[in-house]
């Protein structure tokens, strides 16, 4: 039995008040709140075995190293990777994608080649490829949105595949539309054309069971802070066969076995990509977040989100002069609702939501191409749910929308 009130007790921040009202946190697509279990893991590390990993010959350094590796083992299992050799820790999803564009893209993309992304990508899965294309005089192609603007147009994807893109990079779940791509199907088709596939998993890692073996993708990028872990640690999954042929971008400590004046021997996977002192507390916090998700069950989290979506869509459908973007089929969405109130600017909406204690996001959501496509204001409002949100909080958002409409004399 999913007990949302019991879950909420694990999150100290949910007890605070904003503008005299109980905080309603609806900006989970930006970052998620942290349960006490994660906070305590990091605190325990600082208080009991804070030390640098890998080469310390003393007890607490050994513990720190063990915990760091354990974090990777947990993450590898979490997404069903082959082993920790396929798991490289980075700062965030953005850095992981940039790394692939620089370390892998620079090697494989030649003048005249094609790179395929979509119109609905976050800037972090757009700019690295745009710059790569410019550097190499290659072509950057965009999979179009479907007619209903609820997701990608699969025919457009197939048409672009005929140009045999060397790299295909798409989102798993859109941070604006909320819609979920069939990444297994996309990967299969792309692989038939020998395209290397990267999946931006920033919005799916918190709530969708990921199985990279089943998906078959070559790269999968994600951030810990979107799944109740700390900020500053992200994950790049890369197939061992692919990662083995990539040269490290950064030289430094730990990434080499031996160094002499004019040459070096690289360390094994994945360590050769992790030079310098790593985000150890981040890795420990991430392990705590994985434990927490596993305790609740990721499929239960997904189901809870879908219940909230369904409830919200039913309520929002009854409101005049309100537009919901990305369709209202909760089965094909993560907990993201982007919306607009006719004639009210999103920044006014976010400001007035805040007055009710409700945190939402307004703007271009770092996805300007798709937001410009959806809104002539080039800006939309977004509320996004997670495991601790409630039906009552959705009601509070609906009340806020009605209050705003009254203020702006909209019926």
């Amino acid at each position, binding site marked *: 039995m999913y007990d949302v009130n019991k879950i909420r007790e694990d999150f100290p921040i949910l007890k605070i008040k904003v503008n005299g009202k109980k905080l309603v946190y609806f900006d989970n697509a930006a970052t998620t709140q942290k349960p006490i279990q994660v906070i305590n893991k990091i605190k325990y590390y600082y208080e009991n075995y804070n030390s640098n990993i890998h080469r310390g010959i003393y007890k607490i350094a050994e513990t720190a190293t063990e915990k760091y590796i354990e974090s990777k083992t947990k993450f590898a299992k979490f997404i069903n990777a082959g082993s920790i050799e396929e798991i490289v820790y980075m700062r965030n999803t953005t850095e992981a994608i940039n790394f692939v564009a620089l370390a892998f893209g620079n090697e494989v993309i030649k003048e005249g080649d094609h790179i395929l992304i979509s119109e609905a990508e976050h800037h972090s899965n757009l700019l690295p490829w745009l710059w790569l294309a410019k550097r190499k005089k290659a072509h950057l192609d965009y999979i179009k949105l479907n007619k209903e603007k609820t997701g990608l147009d699969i025919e457009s994807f197939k048409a672009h595949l005929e140009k045999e893109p060397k790299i295909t990079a798409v989102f798993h779940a859109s941070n604006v539309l909320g819609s979920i791509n069939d990444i297994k199907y996309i990967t299969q088709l792309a692989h038939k054309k020998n395209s290397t596939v990267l999946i931006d998993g920033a919005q799916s890692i918190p709530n969708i069971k990921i199985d990279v073996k089943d998906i078959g993708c070559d790269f999968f990028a994600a951030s810990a802070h979107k799944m109740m872990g700390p900020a500053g640690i992200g994950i790049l999954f890369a197939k061992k066969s692919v990662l083995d042929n990539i040269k490290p971008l950064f030289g430094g400590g730990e990434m080499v076995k031996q160094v002499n004046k004019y040459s070096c021997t690289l360390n094994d996977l994945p360590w050769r990509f992790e030079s310098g002192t790593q985000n150890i507390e981040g890795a420990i916090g991430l392990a705590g977040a994985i434990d927490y998700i596993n305790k609740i069950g990721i499929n239960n989290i997904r189901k809870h989100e879908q219940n909230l979506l369904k409830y919200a869509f039913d309520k929002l459908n009854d409101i005049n002069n309100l537009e919901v973007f990305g369709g209202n089929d909760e089965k094909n969405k993560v907990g993201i609702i982007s919306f607009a109130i006719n*004639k*009210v*600017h*999103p*920044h*006014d909406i976010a*400001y*007035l939501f805040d007055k009710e204690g409700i945190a939402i996001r*307004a*703007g*271009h959501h770092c996805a300007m191409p798709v937001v410009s496509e959806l809104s*002539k*204001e*080039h*800006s939309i409002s977004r509320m996004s749910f997670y495991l601790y949100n409630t039906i009552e909080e959705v009601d509070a958002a609906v009340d806020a929308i009605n209050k705003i409409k009254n*203020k*702006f*004399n909209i019926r």
Partner: protein
Amino acid sequence: MSYDIYAEKIILNYEHPHNKGILKGANTHFKEYNQVCGDEIEVYIIINNKKIKDVKFIGRGCAISMASASMITDFIKGKSIKEIEQYNGDIIKNILGIDPGPVRMKCATLSLRAIKEAIERYKIKK
């Protein structure tokens, strides 16, 4: 001064802005952006005898930035450019009759920043 930044006067000016459009015969203009929220305002001004003869604006943005543009453009007509150069956030508060607070002040002053820059460009050209 109203604590509700969406006072009736603000909503009215947002819904029915004054001086909206492109001004024919403008001898200076400038486009200013608010990078935080993507608001943008372009002002067109006719300066005659070191005074604002006429002013119009185009742009898009939140209620605060648009209402502010509507009310400030009304306010500066006939004023000397020397006087306008002295304007700051305080005069905006007085014109709007609200205190937008530190974050929304950027929205409220967007049009004033554009106006000041347009005047600056006019002076350089001269």
